[in-house]
């Protein structure tokens, strides 16, 4: 007899984010754009950023991915406003450490504690972190002013 099914990854709070309807909300005009792929599963996230004084004033994205990737991209869309150079790396590190069993991520990434159920599924951590990689690349590509 199999153990009881574990469906905790797809709890309502995560699915609500995944269905938020911003999966194709590209930003025009934008100051920088970057696309990150997960070659293992084919998920793809494109992030557009508009900047003011080196910080994000608006963020658009197009995500083709699983429910976890969609929910993470939506969470990032709200959390990244105000982020500046280096913040994407720090965000990815703190959220990655949280998924690996560490402390809850600090502001402005605190909302990623929503992904607590993903901690038990190491193969899915990359789904949550892929939007950070797209954001990191976009900020890196942004013109310095």
């Amino acid at each position, binding site marked *: 007899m199999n153990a009881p099914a574990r469906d905790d990854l*797809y709890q309502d709070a995560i699915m609500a984010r995944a269905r938020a309807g911003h999966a194709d909300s590209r930003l025009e005009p934008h100051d920088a754009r970057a696309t990150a792929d997960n070659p293992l599963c*084919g998920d793809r996230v494109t992030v557009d950023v508009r900047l003011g004084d080196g910080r994000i004033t608006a963020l658009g994205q197009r995500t083709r991915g699983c429910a976890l990737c969609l929910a993470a991209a939506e969470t990032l869309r709200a959390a990244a406003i105000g982020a500046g150079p280096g913040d994407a790396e720090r965000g990815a590190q703190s959220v990655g450490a949280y998924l690996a069993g560490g402390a809850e991520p600090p502001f402005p990434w605190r909302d990623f504690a929503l992904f607590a159920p993903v901690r038990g599924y190491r193969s899915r951590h990359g789904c949550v972190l892929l939007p950070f990689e797209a954001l990191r690349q976009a900020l890196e590509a942004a013109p310095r002013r």
Partner: protein
Amino acid sequence: VALDGAHPHDVAQLLDARGVAVRGGHHCAQPLMDRLDLAGTTRASLALYSDDGDVDAFVDGLGEAARRLT
């Protein structure tokens, strides 16, 4: 079977939670998936040792995937 809006890896994960092993993704056929405009598919295969319980678990998991993901 098409589950609109459901990603093949999410379907595979929910089936895995019921002890049903399937394969999700491109199946090494990314050009075909692009041509069909699909993110991928979830593929189930029967084997000589598969029994009614396995099929029931698969159908149960597919129903749960439809409820949660679509």
